[in-house]
C-alpha cells in the first residue's frame, strides 16, 4: 500500500535540530503536539499496513519565510528509508524556482513537485508564475500535487485552493499529471469535475472534514460524489492519502476500507495508481 499524502513535519530528528523549522511547524502549519522519533513514523506505517509513503514539503519562503521542510531534508529522509518517496517543493514567487525544481529532481532524486497555493499564496492558474513549473514537470516527467480544498494550516488561505483555478493548467499541459488532494473538499464537485473531464487529474482521499475518516469519507464520497462515480469513471485516477500527521494513518486506512470499494478499485487506489503515477513498477514493497 502506498500513502500518497504524508508530511514529515513531526519527525523529531528533523525538527529538533532546526529551531526555525520547529517554529514554522507550530505557527505556519499549526501542528502543536510533540514530535516523535523517525522510527515511530515507520512503525505507524507498519501498523497501518502502509508500505511506502510520499513525503510532501511546502516551500513558503516568500509568504512566510520558511520551508516545511526544505528539499534537502526530504532527500535525506528518503535516503534513510526506501519506504519514503520524497517530493520537492519550490516557491513560485522566486525568480529561480525552475532551477530549484530541476536541481531537486535531477540532483536530489526527488520524484515530484508539491505546491500549496493556500500557504504559498499564489494563484495556481497564474500563467507567469505557475505555468513554467508545470511545463518543467512535464519535461522532467514528474507529477505535481497541488493542494486543493480547505487548508487546516492557520496561515493558509482557501481562496487560492479552489480546484477550478487549475482547469486551464490541466488543459494546457495534458502530459503532466496533476494530483488534487483532500478530494478538494469542500469543493469536491469541482475536483471531481476536473478528474472526470481530464485524464491527467488524480484525486487523493485525504479529506479532513469532520468526525472520523470513516464518517468523513462516507459523507463526502458515499453520500456526495458516490462510489459508483469513482468505480465507473475514474478508477485509474484515485489515490489513497492520509494527510499524516494531521490525521491518523491507521484510521485513514480503515476509512478507505469502509467505503465498500470493489477489490479492483481498492487495489488501484492503494497501490497500482500511485505506482503508475510515480513510475514505481510494482506499487508496493
Amino acid at each position: 500500500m502506498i500513502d500518497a499524502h504524508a508530511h514529515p513535519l513531526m519527525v523529531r530528528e528533523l525538527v529538533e535540530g532546526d529551531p526555525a523549522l520547529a517554529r514554522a511547524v507550530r505557527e505556519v502549519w499549526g501542528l502543536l503536539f510533540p514530535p516523535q522519533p523517525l522510527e515511530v513514523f515507520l512503525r505507524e506505517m507498519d501498523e497501518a499496513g502502509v508500505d511506502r509513503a510520499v513525503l510532501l514539503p511546502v516551500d513558503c519562503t516568500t509568504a512566510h519565510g520558511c520551508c516545511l521542510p526544505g528539499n534537502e531534508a526530504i532527500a535525506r529522509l528518503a535516503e534513510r528509508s526506501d519506504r519514503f518517496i520524497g517530493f520537492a517543493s519550490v516557491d513560485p514567487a522566486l525568480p529561480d524556482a525552475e532551477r530549484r525544481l530541476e536541481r531537486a529532481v535531477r540532483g536530489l532524486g526527488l520524484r515530484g513537485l508539491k505546491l500549496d497555493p493556500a500557504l504559498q499564496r499564489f494563484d495556481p492558474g497564474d500563467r507567469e508564475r505557475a505555468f513554467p513549473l508545470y511545463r518543467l514537470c512535464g519535461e522532467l516527467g514528474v507529477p505535481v500535487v497541488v493542494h486543493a480544498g480547505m487548508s487546516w494550516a492557520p496561515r493558509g488561505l482557501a481562496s487560492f485552493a479552489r480546484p477550478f483555478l487549475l482547469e486551464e493548467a490541466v488543459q494546457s499541459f495534458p502530459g503532466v499529471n496533476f494530483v488534487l488532494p483532500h478530494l478538494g473538499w469542500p469543493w469536491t464537485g469541482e475536483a471531481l469535475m476536473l478528474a472526470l473531464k481530464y485524464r491527467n487529474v488524480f484525486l487523493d482521499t485525504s479529506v479532513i472534514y469532520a468526525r472520523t475518516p470513516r464518517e468523513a469519507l462516507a459523507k463526502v464520497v458515499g453520500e456526495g460524489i458516490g462510489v459508483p462515480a469513482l468505480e465507473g469513471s475514474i478508477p485509474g485516477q484515485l489515490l489513497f492519502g492520509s494527510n499524516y500527521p494531521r490525521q491518523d494513518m491507521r484510521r485513514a486506512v480503515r476509512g478507505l476500507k469502509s467505503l465498500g470499494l470493489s477489490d479492483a478499485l481498492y487495489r488501484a487506489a492503494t497501490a497500482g495508481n500511485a505506482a503508475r503515477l510515480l513510475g514505481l513498477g510494482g506499487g508496493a514493497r
Partner: protein
Amino acid sequence: MSVLRRVTILTRKEIELVDITPEIVRTVESSGVEDGTVFVLSLHTTTGLAVNEGLPDLEADIADFLAGLVPEERPYRHARFLHSDGQMAINAPAHLRGSMLGFEAFFPVAGGKIVKGSRQTVYFVELDGPQERTFAIHVVGEPGGGGGRD
C-alpha cells in the same frame, strides 16, 4: 527518601501490553530504599497500566477484550478537529480504554525488594500506538543501612 525515574519506550502496535516488570524491579533494588512503596505511573492519557499473569495468550485476550468493550465506531463527541493540537482528534476509543484501566500501579517495598505475587506481571498498556511513551517509577521510603530508621 525518594527516587524518581522516567523510562521511555517505543511501542509497536495500536494496542500492546509491554512487560515493564524488570524495569520496576531493577529501579527498586538500585534505589537504596529498604522499606516503602513503589509507584508506577503512565504519563499519558491514551495508555494504561495493568497487573496480570505474564502469558502471551492472556495479553492477546486483554487486548482483544479492550478493543471489543470500546468499539472503534460510535458517535464519540471526541471526533473533531482539535485546535490545541492541530490535528484530528479521532482517538476517543483509546482514551476510553485507558480510563477503564487506570494509569497507576503500586507495590510495597520490603527489605529493598518489591513485594508482589510471583505471577504478577506489570504491563504498560499502549492504546493508541505506535508512539514514544514515558512512564515514571517513584520509589519512596526509608533508606537501608540504618539511615533514616532512627
